[in-house]
């Protein structure tokens, strides 16, 4: 129902695969387009494809070849074994999951709450407060990360999960996005529920959230990717190996293994760090793409 109007505005890329042909550049004919897109696609994905194959190539093959080659002659899993055991990679990945899990949970929960208040309630200073949320979107991280570093260090939270997580528990983008969606749900529904004696709290969790599953899961994807891919903050706020996230771990792993030119192990490590985001990409590609496209169109 109400999801329909939102998808109508948001579905700019259409049903990616089943969109009706529009006859835009049809003079081209399909074949040259297929060939160009295949070449472009392979070039763009090439760094990942190379990493994938190299992660299965034995070390002697990589360093022994006169020229780099894409496919391994013999396939091996020993690079993954090495990456997983030769450095605290399991710990890095665990740290990343804890950090990302809490950040995502916090951002989604708090954005649902704040987005709901901005969408449904009237209250004093509403416009000013909303402007403050939106204004924070244009504050670049350069401006905040030094004071935040000093604050977190003073709290003794360097090298802790709190230090990694707490500064990112809220998301202005999430508040904005969910507010927009909540406002698209007919207000009559709310008025009717109120007449039936439903509380605001009840209405949020029993009506609003179930109706907004699409928008909430889209934001969850953004929050997850943003948190998992964080780099500068975890780099400065952790200096103990046991608290590094996967993104930071791969940097130090690279520095150590490069001396041994162990590129197979490095690429296995890179694949391990990438896999959660690649899985999200493959499972939720349409939602992700739609969400990004909307951000551009709204301008």
């Amino acid at each position, binding site marked *: 129902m109400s999801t329909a109007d939102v998808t109508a505005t948001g579905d700019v890329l259409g049903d*990616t*695969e089943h969109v009706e042909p*529009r*006859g835009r*550049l*049809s*003079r081209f004919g399909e074949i040259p387009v297929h060939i160009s*897109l*295949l070449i472009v*696609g392979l070039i*763009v994905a090439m*760094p*990942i494809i190379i*990493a994938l194959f190299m992660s299965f190539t034995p070390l002697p093959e990589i360093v022994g070849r006169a020229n780099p080659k894409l496919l391994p002659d013999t396939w091996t899993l020993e690079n993954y074994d090495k990456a997983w055991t030769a450095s605290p990679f399991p710990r890095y990945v665990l740290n990343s999951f804890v950090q990302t899990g809490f950040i995502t949970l916090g951002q989604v929960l708090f*954005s649902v*709450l*704040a987005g709901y208040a*901005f969408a449904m*309630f*009237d209250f004093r200073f*509403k416009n000013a407060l909303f402007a*403050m949320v939106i204004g924070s*979107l*244009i*504050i*670049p*991280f*350069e*401006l*905040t*990360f*030094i*004071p935040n570093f*000093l604050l977190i260090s003073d709290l003794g939270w360097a090298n802790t999960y709190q230090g990694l997580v707490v*500064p*990112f528990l*809220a998301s*202005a983008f999430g508040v*904005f*996005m969910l*507010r*927009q969606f909540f406002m698209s749900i007919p*207000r009559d529904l709310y008025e009717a529920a109120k007449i039936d004696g439903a509380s605001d709290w009840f209405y949020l969790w029993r009506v609003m959230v179930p109706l907004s599953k699409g928008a909430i899961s889209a934001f969850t994807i953004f929050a997850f990717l943003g948190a998992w891919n*964080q780099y500068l903050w975890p780099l400065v706020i952790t200096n103990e190996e046991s608290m590094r996230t996967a*993104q*930071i771990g791969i940097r130090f792993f690279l520095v150590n293994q*490069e001396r041994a030119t162990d590129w197979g192990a490095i*690429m296995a*490590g*890179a694949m391990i*760090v990438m896999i959660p*985001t*690649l899985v999200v990409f493959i499972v939720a590609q349409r939602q992700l793409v739609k969400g*990004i*496209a*909307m*951000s*551009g*169109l709204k*301008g």
Partner: protein
Amino acid sequence: MAQTMEGKAGATSQAPPHRRHRRRYNRGAYFYLFPTFLILAIFIYYPIIESFRLSLNRVAPFGGKELFVGFENYTRLLQSADFWNTVKVSLWFMVGTVPVGIGLAVAIAILLSVPLKRLSGIYRTLIFVPVVISSAIAGVLFRLLYNPVVGFFNHWLSLIGVDGPNWLNEQTWALVAVTITVVWRQLGFNVIIALAGIQQIDDNLYEAAKVDGAGVFKRIWHITLPMLTPTLFFLTIVNVIISLQAFGEINILTDGGPGRATTNLVYQVFVDGFVGTHFVGRASAQAFMLAILIIAISFIQFRGLGKRVHYQ
């Protein structure tokens, strides 16, 4: 930041008047807002002020002793050749990434906008995938590609008879190497935005042009690109901001080097604030200048938005 304008417009529009008298101020609202504002206050609003305050102090590397020095950090920076070099690196980097990144994205998006009976899903997957790749991973993947022994770039170049450079160890090429990497990581995002813009264009325009006998390239030049200007404007702003903030790739590929060849403003803030002796005041001063530049650019987008509304 993309959505900013709309949000403001939305915030001021309220329920229709006939309904308004029934709505009362809801005190409970603050309960829902509290967690978000608590976090934003501590980790965004307060640091803005604190950042500026720090930039007016000389901060002792150890023990956190501070000495108020007014604008000394700023004046010293403006007189230092190293500072202007980081500005230069940032600008070259911007000039290198933004036009190339957007040009490629638009070309690819035009190809993707051609309706195909099959396989378009696969092409999209291959082309969009950098969207989920982190700056750290992009750095690691390209570090392999640039490697003079096991890397692929110089091997490919040798196939066409070109003797590839020592990418990461030569001043000019190191900057090019970082530029290519960032263009790649941004490409998925840029193509998605460009494609969305192209698909907003009214089909009738193309039909009319076809009737008039305009060929493919004429149609791209006279219809697609002009109609796409709002999207191009948006992409330019976003990409300029992203290029000014590039950090992860530099940290992994070149560590700001060789020499200072790839030390942009963000990287210098990081080095001053967190590497070796900490110059927190100087780092804050640079961060503040960079932030003002970025915020100013964001405001340009704000204002440009008015034009785009007429467009549609």
